[in-house]
């Protein structure tokens, strides 16, 4: 059962055309992303992987509208992406829950910014997503009373509750222990199949990428470019310890390291 307030969304496609992003730092102008062209299909789970410094988090910030492209364009459906918006919610590396609100109020935060809902519909939605992540009994708890894994699950519920067209995830599992992470992989896949969202996940964990993604995009650093795209055609739900998944992950890892060694030769 899903909350009555969720009207079916037209599933959105994100299109990136020749996206370039530069930063002015102490070392002069650095090109973080160079001429990225990429399509995220409707209802697709796309994963961006790459070594640190390849601009994958920058790319996510651009998709979120928290940062602006220097060249090129990003569109969500027909709309250009220029500023943050409720249609693209973000799950951050740290949970980013507000410590002055309890669990339920945190999930309500985004819902209260949707003017077309009644308060009862908002409550229904918030409680539905809290139970979806298995935290129905923690409504009244404050963030500091929850474990790291629980906090990240509340953050997931908070990003899902306003029913965004796209969910953007910036290494949300990297700070968690292995057991909690496995649980969340199951939760995310479960939600992804049930609620059919467009998801973009950034990670440096290749196993995780292959476990969750429909497609895995390998980015290379200095400057950040799309190196290779892998289609992952394994049935869901996938388990992180699946041998087939492991061999696919090895393939991606090989591609990554061969590219890294090539670029080091280039430097030498």
């Amino acid at each position, binding site marked *: 059962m899903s909350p009555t307030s969720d009207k079916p969304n037209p599933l959105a496609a994100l299109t990136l055309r020749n996206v370039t992003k530069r930063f002015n730092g102490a070392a002069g102008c650095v090109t973080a992303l160079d001429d990225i062209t990429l399509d995220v299909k409707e209802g697709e789970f796309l994963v961006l992987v790459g070594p640190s410094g390849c601009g994958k988090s920058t790319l996510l910030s651009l998709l*979120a*509208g*928290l940062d602006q492209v220097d060249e090129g364009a990003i569109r969500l459906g027909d709309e250009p992406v220029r500023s*943050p*918006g*409720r249609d*693209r*919610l*973000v799950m*951050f590396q*740290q949970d*980013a829950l*507000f*410590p*002055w609100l309890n669990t339920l109020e945190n999930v309500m*935060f*985004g819902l209260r*910014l*949707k003017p077309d809902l009644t308060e009862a519909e908002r409550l229904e939605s918030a409680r539905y997503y809290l139970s979806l992540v298995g935290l129905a009994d923690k409504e009244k708890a*404050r*963030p*500091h*009373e929850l474990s790291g894994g629980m906090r990240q699950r509340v953050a997931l519920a*908070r990003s899902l509750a*306003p029913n965004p067209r796209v969910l*953007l995830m910036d290494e949300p599992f990297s700070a968690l222990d292995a057991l909690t992470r496995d649980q969340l992989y199951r939760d995310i896949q479960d939600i992804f199949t049930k609620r059919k969202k467009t998801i973009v996940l950034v990670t440096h964990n290749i196993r995780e990428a292959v476990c969750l993604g429909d497609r895995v995009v390998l980015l290379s650093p200095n400057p950040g470019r799309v190196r290779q795209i892998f289609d992952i055609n394994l049935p869901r739900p996938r388990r992180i310890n699946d041998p087939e998944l492991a061999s696919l992950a090895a393939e991606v890892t090989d591609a990554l390291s061969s590219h890294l060694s090539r670029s080091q030769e280039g430097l030498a």
Partner: protein
Amino acid sequence: MKLPRFVIPTLVAVIFLGGWEWFVRVGHVNDVLVPAPSQILKWFWDSLLNGELLSATWVTMRRLIIGFAIGAALGVPLGALCARVRWIRDTLGVLALGLQTLPSVCWVPLALLWFGQEESALLFVVVMGTIWAVVIAVQESVLNVQPLYLRAAMTMGSKSWHLWLRVILPAALPGVLSGMKQGWAFAWRSLMAAEIFVVILTGFGLGSLLHAGRELLRMDQVMGVMTVVVLVGLLADLIFFAPLERWLRRSRGL
């Protein structure tokens, strides 16, 4: 055996006050210069009965509370503005930093000239004592709000007023509160100084009472008023600030 926590403080107080009383009674010091605790207590009781103490305390507290409220009400938006707009921070923010170091009793001569020997002169001094500490505290704590909170809120569609009221201010609240506490302490000190310094025709506060004690060479009255001033400060902390801080710490797990 473990003693309850209050035993030692009580014992120390009894020994100290008892010793003091004994010292004065035996005649080691002139009780005009150093009154015994019993004399101070007697003054306290008498002035409580004739209403003098309560009315003075009321006059002073009213000035303090109204002045503090005005100072805080102006200081919070000004501090927020300093944090938000760079050129205001470079002007008003720097000015606030400077004026915060100025003991606000320095405003008394100007206040008397501008407002006369009236309530508004003392209110002005209290406001000047409060406002700059609050401005600086709000500015600093707003600038120190974790960017992650802002990013998260903005992606959920929060902006402008909503962002300020629902995210920035709650996130900055601990710092704002300690700024207010500091402002309160400054205001309290400056008000006492001002009340001792000048006669305000519209009401006799604790400072005036203390000053009158000096003129009459009634050191029991002087020390009695000092005791009340200390008690008011302690009570303000106990009733107002301490519970707020405890609530903040508990609810946020700080």
